[in-house]
């Protein structure tokens, strides 16, 4: 085996094993930063030994053994230096006990690790970076490339995040009761943020980003395996898989986006659609009250089920947006609902909904509101008002191409064309 081949293999093993390894080590040493250092030490040992000695038959156990040995050395060293273990909230004997714990605890460890990495005491971007690093097995460099930020920024975020967790004495546990629901929200948000960063990437060196979607889906599936009774976890998995199922159909050969209704549905990934629909069905069976991720997945499922654009069940989509607006009231959701209503019942039905949004301060500078309103007005023949809306939308967009388009639309409206 050449050194390069060995390194690629070690990377692969690391992706498979690192989360479990770090999770077990955090339980042992109660410090995310230290646990990661120990795991990294084991990785370095692998990089030194595997290229010549070959990859061991059970690489995960090999790494765990090395890391645990380093942990014991670390505590011995601490003891010899007569450092007070109370300072760290540690004592050697309990630590030794922890080492003896069997890997049966691994699923719980992983769940605890996810909740720790996504703790609200950390800023959102720190949660994202830490989750990808600790659970996704990504290097700082990979995370930096995925988010188009300098590597030093990511490295700093991770260092600070680990320090914050230690300083704030964040307990390494899965919360219970009402706190669970609240904290689970943060975990799901982080996973969905990672997914969207990959899914809505439009600029920059974006070849890494589909991989980011895959990472988010993988994290979501892990989470669904760890918390199979939580409907919103399944809802999020369904949402991500249904959206990702369209990825192949979303871009032309030149990289131009292709919109939902124009996509070649034969290119949609049936496997992911099947997965997504199954996860959605499980989510809906677990709870009669659908949460925001499950509802968004249900909307995505309407598109996935439509064999042709004309088959789209817009009435159902409009109803789902209505339900979503009750669970998470937002003017953007309302605007989406209005578009669905116009598709289902015509512009006259949708106009009052959009009119109601014009007073909404959150949308005051959102160019899609006047765009949608202008379109509806033009459809019902109120051309003068439509022209004003398109002009207003043109003044709000920062995208030059879109501005040209909206100005053209305004001109048409003034000429009395829908």
């Amino acid at each position: 085996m050449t050194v390069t081949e060995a390194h690629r293999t070690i990377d692969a093993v690391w992706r498979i094993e690192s989360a479990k390894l770090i999770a077990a080590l955090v339980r042992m040493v109660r410090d995310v930063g230290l646990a990661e250092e120990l795991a990294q030490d084991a990785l370095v040992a692998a990089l030194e030994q595997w290229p010549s000695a070959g990859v061991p038959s059970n690489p995960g156990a090999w790494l765990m053994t090395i890391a645990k040995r380093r942990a014991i050395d670390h505590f011995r060293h601490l003891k010899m230096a007569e450092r007070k273990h109370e300072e760290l909230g540690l004592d050697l004997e309990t630590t030794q006990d922890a080492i003896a714990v069997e890997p049966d605890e691994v699923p719980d460890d992983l769940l605890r690790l996810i909740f720790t990495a996504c703790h609200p005491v950390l800023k959102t971007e720190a949660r994202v970076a830490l989750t990808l690093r600790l659970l996704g097995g990504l290097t700082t460099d990979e995370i930096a490339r995925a988010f188009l930020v300098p590597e030093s920024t990511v490295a700093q975020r991770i260092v600070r995040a680990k320090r914050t967790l230690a300083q704030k004495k964040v307990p390494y546990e899965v919360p219970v009761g009402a706190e669970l629901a609240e904290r689970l929200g943060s975990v799901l948000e982080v996973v969905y943020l990672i997914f969207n960063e990959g899914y809505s990437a439009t600029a920059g060196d974006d070849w890494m980003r589909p991989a980011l979607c895959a990472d988010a889906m993988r994290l979501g599936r892990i989470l669904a395996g760890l918390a199979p009774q939580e409907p919103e976890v399944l809802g999020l998995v369904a949402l991500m898989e249904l959206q990702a199922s369209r990825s192949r159909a979303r871009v032309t050969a030149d990289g131009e986006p292709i919109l939902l209704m124009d996509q070649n549905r034969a290119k949609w990934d049936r496997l992911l659609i099947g997965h997504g629909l199954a996860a959605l069905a499980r989510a809906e069976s677990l709870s009669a009250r659908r949460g925001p991720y499950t509802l968004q997945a249900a909307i995505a499922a309407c598109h996935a089920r439509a064999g042709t654009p004309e088959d789209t069940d817009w009435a159902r989509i409009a109803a789902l947006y209505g339900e979503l607006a009750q669970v998470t009231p937002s003017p953007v959701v309302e605007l989406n609902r209005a578009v669905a209503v116009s598709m289902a019942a015509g512009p006259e039905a949708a106009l009052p909904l959009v009119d109601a949004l014009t007073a909404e301060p959150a949308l005051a500078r959102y160019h899609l509101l006047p765009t949608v309103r202008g379109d509806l007005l033009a459809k019902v023949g109120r051309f003068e008002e439509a022209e004003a809306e398109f002009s207003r939308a043109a003044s709000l967009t920062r995208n030059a191409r879109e501005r040209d388009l909206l100005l053209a639309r305004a001109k048409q409206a003034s000429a009395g064309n829908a």
Partner: protein
Amino acid sequence: MKFMVLVKADENTEGGAMPTEQDLAEMGKFNEELVKAGVMLAGEGLLPSSKGVRLRYSDQGTTVLDGPFTETKELIAGFWILEVSSREEVIEWMKRAPFQNTTIEIRQVASEEDFGDAMTPELREHEARLRQQVEQQQGR
């Protein structure tokens, strides 16, 4: 990236020998690991080719050929579809599969790994319609 893992047939699988309870338990455990790691998208075992058919398309029309088929080595006895980050990762996973005296083949599933629009399909759709309309009216 997605990979298909093809498990090659042999005399046993073609002879219709069913796995033992222990085989099934071990394979179940392996599959569970794949599922929990979030990498498994699909996986099935196939019945012997004696229960299969082949369709051959030609100028003269379509011929249906009943199994069994003789080229055992070219037949498939089962498959997985796994989503992982590299070819090495799928190899590392499959090294852990409880197989003995079996050949498997790993093939990458073709896909344009492209992404490009955002999370509100209805708004996007709306914009697309506008764009199309304008372009049509301008005779482009």
